[in-house]
């Protein structure tokens, strides 16, 4: 039951957005592979990974290198987003608005059969926005606690030293949370849902099918191609 525009694609993501997504996949993956065995060092599987990567010192080095790289990307992303908005070259389309919370409630009402239609979403729906802000805060926590753990001597001079073991607990748990969110929410929610199965390719190709845009981001579609 394909509507008009079923084979017509429109550009949705810039090269910079696609580059960031691909880099996050790479670095997040590297951080998981080198980080999780450090969270559970006494599992056989962890030992296997650590040995395969050249021992715990190599694993820690790789983890820190990937952490620095991802922190750099994170800083570049924030700088890009802020300058984009300031120079009016892009819109702050990820900012949370009251509508997003209303959308969440309305969408849940639709799920349980209390509403006839789902809410009409803009460029990003509330699920994407929540995940984005989760990623932003998560990345901030991970980078901050990560650098505290990287330079404990320095940080114990400027801050209470108990922050260092606290940062370790935070880093380790936040990592687990991030992993679970990416697994459950992002992989299953963004790629494996019936609408997108087996995967939503638009963040990789930068393009989206016009009818899919209309269905999933009705307000953005109206803005770009005129309302119905």
């Amino acid at each position, binding site marked *: 039951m394909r509507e008009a525009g079923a084979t017509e694609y429109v550009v949705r993501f810039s090269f910079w957005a696609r580059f960031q997504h691909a880099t996050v996949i790479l670095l997040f993956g590297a951080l998981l592979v080198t980080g999780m065995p450090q969270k559970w060092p006494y599992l056989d599987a962890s030992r296997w990974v650590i040995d395969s990567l050249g021992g715990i*010192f190599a694993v820690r080095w790789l983890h820190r290198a990937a952490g620095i790289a991802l922190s750099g990307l994170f800083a570049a992303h924030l700088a890009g987003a802020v300058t984009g908005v300031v120079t009016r070259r892009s819109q702050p389309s990820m900012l949370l608005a009251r509508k997003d919370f209303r959308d969440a409630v309305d969408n849940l009402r639709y799920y349980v059969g209390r509403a006839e239609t789902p809410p009409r979403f803009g460029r990003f729906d509330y699920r994407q926005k929540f995940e984005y802000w989760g990623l932003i805060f998560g990345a901030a926590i991970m980078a901050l606690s990560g650098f505290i753990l990287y330079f404990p001597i320095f940080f114990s001079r400027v801050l209470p030293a108990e922050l260092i073991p606290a940062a370790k607990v935070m880093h380790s748990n936040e990592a687990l949370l991030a992993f679970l969110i990416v697994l459950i929410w992002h992989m299953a929610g963004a790629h494996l849902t019936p609408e997108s199965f087996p995967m939503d390719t638009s963040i990789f190709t930068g393009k989206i099918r016009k009818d899919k845009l209309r269905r999933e981001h009705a307000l953005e579609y109206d803005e770009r191609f005129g309302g119905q």
Partner: protein
Amino acid sequence: MTRRGGATTGGIAVTLALAVGLLAGISAAQQPAESVAQCLGCHDDPQLSLTLKDGSVMSLYVDPREFARSVHGSQLVCTDCHAQYAQDHPSGATFPTKRAYVIAAYETCKKCHFDTYTRTLESVHYELVKGGLDSAPVCTNCHGAHNIQNPHEKRAMVSRSCATCHQAVYERYARSVHGKALVEEGNQDVPACADCHTHHQIEQPGTKRFRLGSPEICIRCHADERRMAKYSISTTVAQTYLSDFHGVTASLTRAAASAASQRVVVTCVDCHGAHDMASPRLKGQAAMKATVAATCAKCHADASPDFPAAWLSHYEPSLRHAPLVFLVGLFYKIFIPFVVIGLVLHLLLHLYRVSAGR
């Protein structure tokens, strides 16, 4: 000489003597004692000695009471060990030095103590014996010859016999919390030298392998709830070390046996000392803090006096010890399931709606 041959003949002789003794209604123990008495007939003379080939004089005196009190006194007769003197006696002068005699004689121990003897062959002491070092110990150097005591009953003696060669280490040990308790109080819970270094298969200490394995030695007692309860010592020392950065590094490095720098691997002994460990509790809170800070500074040169707070001092985080760490952990214990259940529910509702049809 009434007894001839080795242990087997001796064993048969004892069995025969037992049978005869039982039949005759006399104590069987008298039979071997008679043989000892025969040897002691000459060897109880403190002046009895022998000049060896190198010109040194070796005493041949055996204190009869000392031998009787030894663990072997009621079990063995002289020729069980000195089988070669059952015939053609005396013949000691064929040895060039006293050491040569000891080396030739000590192997007789393996006739009965084969397993322990075999273990010594893998020890650092045996390496030295093999290398020709005259001061390297063989069985009799640690256990004595005619005055052998049960080392399980007289543990303090174990450490004292190590002191024969390792005097400086022994003195440090004797002043430590372990050594004091053993030497001064006869406390049987604390380790003597051999409890950490093992009795016979003594490994070369100071190697990377030994260092990385050392936590296992400490944990053997310090994770023992019953033993530690007597002294109100926490048994979480082991698991808190193993979950700590230092402990993880040590155990992972050991498993990998990589060429990683030894300096960065911190084991129990790096903070607590190996032979001179002191009880941190005896000095009071402030002194303890300063000691810990000084210990951290051994490796973390720029560490501030507050740096020890970066370490949980072997405590599990709780509201009393490290409340911040505890609360962060508690937050995630609640927050992670909350988020995960929420996300899964949302996802399931989505699937339910799709499958129910729009």
